[in-house]
């Protein structure tokens, strides 16, 4: 287990140090930074005037509160920086791995649990989320810990196992809406294993933590209910939805399209290199075939399905895959951390079952999967998009902008320019605010947004494109950023 942990930490830390910085990381560090420095959970780098984010400079309601609340004491201990934000996700990654070791050793045995934990620890998408300054890993780790707590404590005391699991899953739900996946999984697990032992009292033990969490959050919501409603409902399709044709809940209206998109956009596309067969990242497709093959085999192969524990794991896997498919129409890649551990664990059991009587095959099969995963992470590390893209753009701005110059650009730049600096993340380039920066920095997302806005918001598109054509000139371009300066 120590070897697996060391491998996971090596992959995560090397990703932390080399991965490009994304706007999400700036947006989600901002409220924690202000909580630490001013005592108020507000977000100042995002321009909110005229949009559903209005009120953000006083209250941060568009995201759930637990991730910034966890960041603040973390920064107090380890200092505020991009690295410390990302390292927090790595710590949650270790918690998630521990939870999966407990889940799989309870459902199966120590050997299968070790292989399952190894396959999760090296998974490219799991490692990415463990090195990304978003809340996804924290949410997943809390949810998986809830399932582990229930499985390990239920025989000793059902009420207290439900209370412990309920507390962890409620915390997941207050970290990110994907916590609902853990809540569904916990409900399914309880009904499958202990429905006959349930009484109103035991159910109350499970519900109590949710009630306490909701009550505490309500106190914060009560400070500005109108802002809460606008920001929270605005974020249903969210900022991501503004640059995509997809909407969060479109699956409820078009389930077949949602299933097709889930396969193609969330999985096949994310586990391949966009058709570049010379890239090590294309090896990811082997991993996806193994993950999919494990599900197919568990459904078809009666012996595998009837292996103790497999029925429960298969149920949880299908439930989580289905729920994510229908609840997230945006097909966001960071949410893979919610499903990949189930798939990897099922793959471990499948490998074990199909190599029964031929144990000498196991290291080779596991080795191929580990190789494919490590190769993908190593390729991303070698690309070093942090230095090649982010740092070169941020350093240019640091060198050329005077202290009073307004810079309009994506939130990730705040890690270099400062969260109290003259940086505004305004993809609309002052359409509502009237602000015009000396510099306008386009990242990938700004470019996508501008392209999509030609259809979705032509007036804003015309405003931004017109200004770029007539008032600005390009001064730097790299694969991730284009910097414009006022003429």
């Amino acid at each position, binding site marked *: 287990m120590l070897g697996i942990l060391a491998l996971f930490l090596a992959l995560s830390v090397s990703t932390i140090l080399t991965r490009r910085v994304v706007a999400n990381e700036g947006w989600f560090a901002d409220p924690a930074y202000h909580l630490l420095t001013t005592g108020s959970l507000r977000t100042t780098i995002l321009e909110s005037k005229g949009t559903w984010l209005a009120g953000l400079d006083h209250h941060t309601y568009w995201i759930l509160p637990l991730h910034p609340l966890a960041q603040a004491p973390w920064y107090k201990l380890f200092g505020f920086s991009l690295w410390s934000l990302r390292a927090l996700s790595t710590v949650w990654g270790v918690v998630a791995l521990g939870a999966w070791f407990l889940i799989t050793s309870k459902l199966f045995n120590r050997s299968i649990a070790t292989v399952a934990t190894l396959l999760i620890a090296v998974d490219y998408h799991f490692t990415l989320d463990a090195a990304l300054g978003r809340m996804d890993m924290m949410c997943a780790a809390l949810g998986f810990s809830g399932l582990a707590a229930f499985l390990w404590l239920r025989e000793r005391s059902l009420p207290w196992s439900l209370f412990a699991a309920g507390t962890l899953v409620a915390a997941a739900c207050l970290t990110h809406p994907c916590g609902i996946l853990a809540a569904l999984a916990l409900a399914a697990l309880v009904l499958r294993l202990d429905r006959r032992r349930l009484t109103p009292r035991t159910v109350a033990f499970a519900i109590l933590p949710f009630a306490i969490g909701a009550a505490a959050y309500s106190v914060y919501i009560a400070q500005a209910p109108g802002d809460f409603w606008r920001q929270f409902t605005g974020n249903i399709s969210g900022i991501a939805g503004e640059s995509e044709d997809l909407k969060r809940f479109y699956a409820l209206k078009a389930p077949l399209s949602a299933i097709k998109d889930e396969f193609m*956009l*969330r999985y096949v596309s*994310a586990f391949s290199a*966009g058709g570049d067969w010379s890239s090590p*990242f294309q090896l990811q497709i082997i991993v996806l075939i193994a993950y999919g093959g494990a599900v197919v*085999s568990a459904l*078809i192969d*009666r012996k595998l399905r009837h292996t103790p524990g497999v029925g429960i794991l298969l149920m949880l896997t299908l439930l989580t895959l289905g729920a994510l498919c229908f609840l997230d129409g945006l097909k966001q*890649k960071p949410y893979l951390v919610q499903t990949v551990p189930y798939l990897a664990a099922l793959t471990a059991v499948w490998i074990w079952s199909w190599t029964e009587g031929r144990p000498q095959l196991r290291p080779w099969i596991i080795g191929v999967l580990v*190789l494919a995963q490590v190769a993908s992470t190593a390729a991303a590390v070698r690309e070093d998009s942090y230095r090649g893209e982010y740092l070169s753009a941020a350093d240019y701005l640091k060198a050329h902008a005077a202290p009073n110059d307004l810079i309009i650009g994506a939130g990730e730049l705040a890690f270099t320019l400062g969260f109290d600096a003259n940086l505004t993340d305004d993809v609309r380039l002052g359409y509502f605010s009237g602000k015009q920066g000396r510099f306008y920095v386009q990242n990938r997302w700004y470019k996508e947004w501008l392209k999509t806005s030609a259809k979705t918001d032509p007036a804003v598109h015309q405003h931004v494109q017109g200004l770029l054509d007539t008032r600005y000139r390009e001064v730097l371009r790299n694969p991730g950023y284009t910097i414009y300066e006022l003429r």
Partner: protein
Amino acid sequence: MNKIKYLIMLASMILCCSAYANDDGGGPAGAPEPATIALFCAGLAGIGLVAWRRNRRK
């Protein structure tokens, strides 16, 4: 476990070709290309067939 260690070491040696990292912070990846879809479907179909034959043997 030694074989796994060997394969991990091998991984670092084969990384001499071009790199493509699918690691944006959010949003879906673009649509996959047909050869990848075909390989994925063929892989699943193959595994499904083996599972079905194992099931019949029992």
